[in-house]
């Protein structure tokens, strides 16, 4: 409810500011995006804690869970940056950011991939 209210207020204010000060309007949009995201972080925290508890008592190896969490974090931040860059009209910059996000996620996923491959190789009869 509050989020929608704030989002609407922000859109109206940006419209007003658009003709006079496009820069300020753009900063306002970033500000609102960030504040909504901060509002959500609290909720995400609870979800992650429950996930960790489940993983813990399922005796999963915590390294994997942590890397997965990090990958989700990187994806969030990269998406945040890409949307803002695209909103400002910088399509090229947005795609660069997206590429950077993907590469970072790949780098983090390497240990998991190697673990999976070893597991599969272990299963194969020699």
């Amino acid at each position, binding site marked *: 409810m509050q989020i929608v209210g704030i989002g609407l207020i922000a859109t109206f*204010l940006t419209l007003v500011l658009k003709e006079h000060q496009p*820069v300020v309007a753009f900063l306002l949009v970033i500000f609102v995006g960030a504040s909504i995201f*901060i*509002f959500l972080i609290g909720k995400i925290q609870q979800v992650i804690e429950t996930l960790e508890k489940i993983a813990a008592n399922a005796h999963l190896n915590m390294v994997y869970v942590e890397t997965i969490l990090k990958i989700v974090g990187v994806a969030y931040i990269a998406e945040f940056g890409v949307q803002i860059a695209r909103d400002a009209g910088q399509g090229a910059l947005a795609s660069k950011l997206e590429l950077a996000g993907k590469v970072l996620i790949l780098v983090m996923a390497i240990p998991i991939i190697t673990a999976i491959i070893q597991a599969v190789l272990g299963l194969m009869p020699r």
Partner: protein
Amino acid sequence: MSLDVNTIFQIAGIGIIVAMIQTVLKQMGKDDWSQWVTLIGFVVILYMVASLIGNLFDKIKDVFLFNG
């Protein structure tokens, strides 16, 4: 949550004030002053947004266990 609404109105207020000052100064013919005012307004807003984004990234760091 109420903090956000105040700061949003502050930012919008600064933007509108800067726009008004610019038109007033243009009539009075002092154009260089209006540039200064827009710059100052812009820096203030940038500072607000930067501090909020810094705060946001810190929160993300400890939520997603970013120890790297």
